Structure formats: structure tokens, C-alpha cells
């Protein structure tokens, strides 16, 4: 019996080692691809192609802002969205049956009046109670509807939008003033049909905000939000830039992504039976275009920034990560047909398998490894030398990936200027390997068991007002 167990443990060790090497080298390759992409974009940005006077005849854009219990931040966010510098813009806030005073705040702050707006009802949604428009700024439309979830709210927004393009943005976010102009650039200069564009999301907690604009980004003081800065940098600048280069970008964040409305309507809008509606939409768009044999691009633009509030408490962060992971799993399973199917190009041959093996199964492999270590320890067969070396290797890889991402930030966007923040980021790049990453993996692992039973609803995050403060 002991012999068999020993064999199992050894075989599994070998498997984990290979898996570990494969996953880390894949991330490293993505980072290298991202470097190339980022350098191109930064050179492009320096050349200021889209200057004011050459950016007038641009496609119209609707900002769709689904809102559920956003009373503390909604006024500031909408204010920030209306200040976005873009010639043909409308802002559609969809109040998804909020139980707090989200609608009242909007009515008061923007002097809403009841409006009529024909909806083609292209997508079925929960009942729309009323449509409002702002007397102060007619570009602001508010759709008040029964609660149906984020995806349902976005679908309602799509029904009422009149623009060629739309961008889904979270109601607790702030957009940089020229974010849309920078995001639309690849759409204007495209050499193939661009279906979707994604920008960077960065945590706004503790940053200096004035008049709805982040004037001095800062790394949050609290540990959890600070860790998320590092994580967002790695995910956006490292991961998504790399995927964009491979034209296998499967995730464009729901917090800031631009799409062609017509194409999204063609695939039936957002699926309401998943919590990962943003990833699911992108994957279905890939699928549709590939099935129709059309050339297209999904582009990540590593420059326009959307600032958002990230969870500060462990329970909220756990719930958020659990939701993200469930979304990933549901999307992969729903679009399983694409897996290793050459018909779906790089998205099917590389993107989907990567997300399945590394993003979805990663936590399973990691925790089964820990479990086996405990079993081996009980049996007294742990090779401590091997375990230690393996742990050091994991940390070195982790720090390497994070530091590489930080370096990309330094050479490209340079968002954080205070030396205190830079030092903090370097420290976080090391510290996140001791506990934080394992915690994230655990939350992701628990999601695997909750895919079927969890309700598809809004994530509950305790909203706090954006703090407007003066720079010190």
C-alpha cells in the first residue's frame, strides 16, 4: 500500500513540476509578446495621431453604465463619464432595480425628466419601468428597470442605445478624460474589422481625485487593495497585451470595453445565465466571426485607463474572485466546441486551452499538490530538499513575472510617480507570493464547486464615496 502511495506521490510530483514549468513559461511568453505590443502602442501614443481636429468625424459611442445599489458613487461616476472628451457621446445609466437611492440621487443631481425612447426590444430583458433624460445634459439617459442582473441591465442599455459603438463601464468607475479618444484610435486606423477594444482598469482607492478625475494615482494604503494594484498591472499589461498580440483576447473587462453594437446584437447581447457575461460575450464574438469565416480583431489598448474601486475587505474580494472564476468556468464549458478546434484559429487552439488548463484547473493542481504534500508528510516520505527548492523556484518565477510587469509600466504608462509608491510596488511584487496568491487560488478553487448552485446576480460590494482630496 505504502509503495503504491509513494508511486502516486512521485508521479504526481512529476506532473506538478511539468505543469508548473509549462504555466510559468507560458506566462513569461505572454509577457514577451506583451512587451512587443506595449512598445508599439507607446510609440504610437507619442506620435499623437488622433489630435483634436482630426477626431471629429468619429463613430458615435454610448457609455452603458449598469447600476445596482450605487448610491454613494453614482453621481461622481456619471459626472466623470459626461466629462469624457468625445464628440458624439451619450451616457445611458441602467438602474437595475436598485434598493437604495441610486435613482433618486440621479434624479436630483442631473434633474431627470421622464422621456420616451423607442426600444427596438432586440433583446428580451426584465421590464423597463421608465426612461429619463437629464435636463442639464441631454446626453444623459437613465433606464429604470426591474432587477435582472448586470447582463440584463447591459442588454436593456443595448436596446435603448442609438450609437454605432458602445462601451460598458462600471458605475463605480472613473474614466480618464481622453480615455475614449485613445481607445478608439485602433478602431479608426484599423486594417481589419475591429469588434472589441479593451482598456486598462486600475484601482482608484486612495488616489487623489478631483472633480471626477484621478489627478494623482497612488498605491492604496491598505494591504488588499494594494495587492490588487500589482495584480491588475500584471493581468492587463502583461496578460491581455500578450493575448491581443495573438488575437486571442478572450476577456475584455466589463468595466471598460468598447464594442460594435450591431455585432453584439447579432450574437444576442449578453447572456443572463452566467456571471461572466463580459468574457462570455467576447468568446461568442470570436466564435461567430470564425464560424462565418470573417477577418476581425479584438484589441487591447494599454493606455486609456478606467479607475475603479477595488474590494478592501477579504469577504468582498473572495466573493468577487469566486464570481470571476465561475464566469470563466461557465464560459469555457459553454463554448467547449472551440477547444482545440482549428476552425476557431488562435482563440480555439491557444486561448481556450490556456484558460482551461491554467486559469480554470490551476487552483486544482496547486491545492492537490499541497494536499499531497501533507499526505507525504504524514507518511514521512517528503523530500524536504525537493520541496524547498520547488518553493523557491515558485517564488522566483512569481517575482520575475511581477517585476517584468512593473518594468513594462515604468517604460510605458508610468502611472505611479511617487517614489513611495514605486517602492511599495516592488515590495508587493515579492510579498504577494507569500499568502496572497495562495488565498486567491483557494477562492478560485471554491468557485469550481459552486458553478451550478450559485445565483446569477450582482456582486455585492460595499460602495464608498470617491474621496476628493488635495495632493499633498
Amino acid at each position, binding site marked *: 500500500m505504502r509503495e503504491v502511495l509513494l508511486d502516486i506521490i512521485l508521479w504526481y510530483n512529476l506532473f506538478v513540476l511539468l505543469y508548473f514549468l509549462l504555466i510559468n513559461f507560458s506566462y513569461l511568453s505572454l509577457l514577451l509578446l506583451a512587451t512587443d505590443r506595449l512598445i508599439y502602442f507607446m510609440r504610437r501614443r507619442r*506620435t499623437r495621431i488622433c489630435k483634436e481636429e482630426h477626431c471629429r468625424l468619429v463613430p458615435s459611442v454610448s457609455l452603458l453604465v449598469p447600476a445596482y445599489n450605487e448610491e454613494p458613487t453614482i453621481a461622481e461616476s456619471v459626472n466623470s463619464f459626461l466629462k469624457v472628451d468625445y464628440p458624439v457621446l451619450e451616457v445611458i445609466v441602467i438602474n437595475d432595480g436598485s434598493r437604495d437611492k441610486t435613482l433618486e440621487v440621479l434624479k436630483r443631481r442631473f434633474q431627470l425628466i421622464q422621456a420616451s425612447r423607442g426600444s427596438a426590444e432586440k433583446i428580451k430583458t426584465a421590464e423597463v419601468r421608465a426612461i429619463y433624460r437629464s435636463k442639464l445634459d441631454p446626453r444623459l439617459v437613465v433606464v429604470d428597470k426591474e432587477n435582472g442582473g448586470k447582463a440584463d441591465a447591459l442588454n436593456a442599455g443595448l436596446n435603448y442605445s442609438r450609437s454605432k459603438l458602445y462601451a460598458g463601464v462600471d458605475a463605480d468607475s472613473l474614466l480618464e478624460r481622453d480615455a475614449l479618444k485613445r481607445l478608439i484610435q485602433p478602431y479608426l486606423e484599423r486594417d481589419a474589422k475591429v469588434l472589441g477594444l479593451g482598456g486598462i482598469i486600475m484601482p482608484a482607492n486612495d488616489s487623489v481625485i478631483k472633480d471626477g478625475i484621478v489627478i494623482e494615482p497612488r498605491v492604496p494604503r491598505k494591504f488588499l487593495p494594494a495587492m490588487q494594484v500589482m495584480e491588475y498591472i500584471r493581468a492587463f499589461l502583461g496578460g491581455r497585451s500578450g493575448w491581443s498580440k495573438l488575437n486571442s483576447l478572450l476577456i475584455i473587462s466589463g468595466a471598460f470595453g468598447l464594442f460594435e453594437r450591431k455585432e453584439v446584437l447579432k450574437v444576442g447581447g449578453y447572456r443572463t445565465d452566467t456571471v461572466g457575461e463580459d468574457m462570455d460575450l467576447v468568446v461568442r464574438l470570436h466564435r461567430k466571426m470564425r464560424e462565418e469565416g470573417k477577418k476581425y480583431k479584438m484589441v487591447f489598448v494599454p493606455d486609456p485607463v478606467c479607475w475603479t474601486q477595488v474590494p478592501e475587505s477579504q469577504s468582498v474580494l473572495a466573493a468577487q474572485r469566486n464570481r470571476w472564476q465561475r464566469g470563466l468556468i461557465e464560459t469555457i464549458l459553454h463554448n467547449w466546441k472551440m477547444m482545440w478546434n482549428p476552425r476557431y484559429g488562435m482563440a480555439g487552439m491557444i486561448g481556450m486551452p490556456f484558460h482551461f488548463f491554467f486559469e480554470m484547473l490551476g487552483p486544482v493542481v496547486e491545492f492537490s499538490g499541497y494536499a499531497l504534500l501533507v499526505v507525504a508528510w504524514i507518511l514521512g516520505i517528503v523530500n524536504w530538499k525537493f520541496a524547498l527548492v520547488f518553493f523557491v523556484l515558485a517564488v522566483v518565477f512569481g517575482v520575475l513575472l511581477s517585476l517584468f510587469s512593473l518594468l513594462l509600466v515604468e517604460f510605458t504608462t508610468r502611472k505611479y510617480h511617487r517614489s513611495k509608491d514605486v517602492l511599495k510596488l516592488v515590495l508587493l511584487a515579492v510579498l504577494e507570493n507569500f499568502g496572497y496568491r495562495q488565498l486567491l487560488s483557494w477562492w478560485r478553487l471554491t468557485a469550481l464547486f459552486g458553478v451550478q448552485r450559485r445565483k446569477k446576480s450582482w456582486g455585492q460590494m460595499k460602495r464608498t464615496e470617491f474621496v476628493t482630496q488635495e495632493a499633498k
Partner: protein
Amino acid sequence: MGFLEEFQNWAVPLALVLIALLGGILMALFLTYVISLYRHAREDAYVRRNQLRWLELVKRLFEGTLRYADVKLSRRERPWIRELLIDAFFRQEFECSWDADRQRDSFAELKIQPSCEERVRTIYNALGFLKEDMRGLGSRSWWRRVKAVERLEDMGFVEAEDALLRLLSDKRPEVRFAALKTLAAFGSKRFYSQVGEIFSASSSWSYLYLVNILYYARLPVEVLEPLARSDNPYLRKAAATLLGRKGEAKSVSLLAKLAEDGVEEVRREAIASLARTGSAAAIPVFWRRLQDESPQVRAAIAQGMGELDQLVFLQKLSSDEEFDVRFQAFAALSHLGPLGREVIVNYKGKYKDLAQEFLRLEPQKGGSHA
């Protein structure tokens, strides 16, 4: 099983080798990061330390109290002074002075200079920056070529026209686009003959970008005519957009033809452009297309009618079967002042919500409700 027994024996050295390798890379990355941070900080400090000196230097050159020959610039400070001059050049478009908010008071007396534009350009040239930019046009790096083109545009060096025309056939689209943008900004006419070729050589997807650039070049109707008559709907659509400029009566006949195009987007663009021309000759065209099968074209007519103050047409479109068309017609009516609002009042029975919405809204100056 021998393999398994041996596994941990070779796995440890393998992991150690990897650690050493990755550790090396990590150290290199860390060093690069630190060096980069240091260089950025040093550069920032350098600029802060020297900014006033550079301002003083430019000011003296500007006043003529310092001879160009006496100015010796280091490699490091040249880009900063160049940026300073470009900045100065831009500012003088308004009042030929430095913005007091930027606390460059020492430079405030520039206000009294009669021709800042020419002086700044002369200094730029005398310090060798123009020569550098011209050299930059032939750089092997595409972004350096683009950057040089943009600086020439910033400084308005129209003498670079020949070199820019050559760049229209550059292998990088970024360079071609930048050159075209600059030529358009210079008001050059020599690229007109290449417009068709520029559109054909670019992807059909980037036509919107080209249209954005060329719209401000105010291309003559004769140049756009071949595009308008092209078999390619993208080119016809581009022509329809580019023809729509205020006071261009000559373009109306061509736009009238495009308004009958078989492609909906071309018709819609032509209608919008006809409205932009502000010509009364557009009205019969609108009348003909009033029953267009596409609601988007009819909505464009409603918008256009608003711009041409055509109340009767708008009354007709206000009861269109499509909401979008009615919406646009009501929006246009609300811009027409009391008369338009009177028409809206008449629809309070038929389209109560829509009418009330526009009656409640304040008329927007210059903006659209839609």
C-alpha cells in the same frame, strides 16, 4: 519504476539550475528597473534644474541679445530646448506669450514682440533643429520618421513639402498617415492627385481615419469626383463625407447623385453632408428621399432639415412610423425655437411622451438632443 526513483534526484538539480537562471534574469530585470527609475528621476531633476536657464537662453535669442553662434547645446539638452520652442510656437498662436499660470514670468515680455511665429521658427532653424527633423524623415525607425513629421507640422515648416510627399509612399502606414495629415495641415495641393491612390492603398477599414484627416484639407470637388464615381462603396462613402462642407455649392450636384446610391450608408452620409453645405439646393434632394426605405436615411433627413430650418418637412417626418425618425424630427423642431415648439405641442395628443420630453427640455444651443 527506476525513472520515478531517479526523478527526485534529477528534479532537484534541474530546479536549482532554473533558479539560478531565473534568478539571473530577475537580477537583470531588477537592475534595469532600478536604473530606469534612477534615469527617470535624474532626468526630471535635470529638467527642473535647467528649465529656467533654458528659458533665459531662448528669451535672449528671442530678444537678439545672444548670437546663435555663441549657443552651444549639449546632446542631452537639445530635445528639451526643442520642445520648449515648439511649445512657444504653439502659444504664440493666441497671444505670443507664455502662460502666466505656468509661472514662467521671466518670459512674459515676449508679449511685446511683433512676430513671434517667425522668430521662434528662425531660432528653431538656427539651432539646427530643422536640419535634425529633415534628417529624421529618413530615419530607419518608423516612429522617428513620424515624430519628425509631426514636429515639422507643429512648427509649420512648409518647405518640407517635397520630403513629405515622398513619405506618402512609405512602407509603414503610420508614416504615410502622418505625412498626409501634415500635408493637409499645410494646405498643400500637391497631394491631391494621390488621394484616390491613398484610399486604395489603405485598408477599407481605415477609411474613416483618412476621412478625418482629409476633411480639414478641404479637397476641391474635382479631386473628390473620381471617388464619388468609384465602384467601391467605401470610397463613395468617403467622398460623400468629404463633400459636405459649408458653402460648397458645387458639391451639391455630386452629393445629390450620392443620395440616390444603392448603399444605405452612402445615402445617409450624402444626406448629412448635404445638410452641412447649408445650400437651399439640397432641399429638393431631401424631398425626393423623404420616402427612403431606410429609417436611418430618413432620420438623417430630419436632422438635416433642422439645420436648414425646414419646418414643413419636419412636420411630415414627425409622424414617421419609425421612432428614431420621429425622435430626430422632434429634436430638430425643438432647435427651431417657438415655431418648432408649436409643432411639437400639436403632437401632444398623438405622441404624448415624446412631445412632453422635448417641451420640458431647454432648447440646446449648438448641441443635439439625439
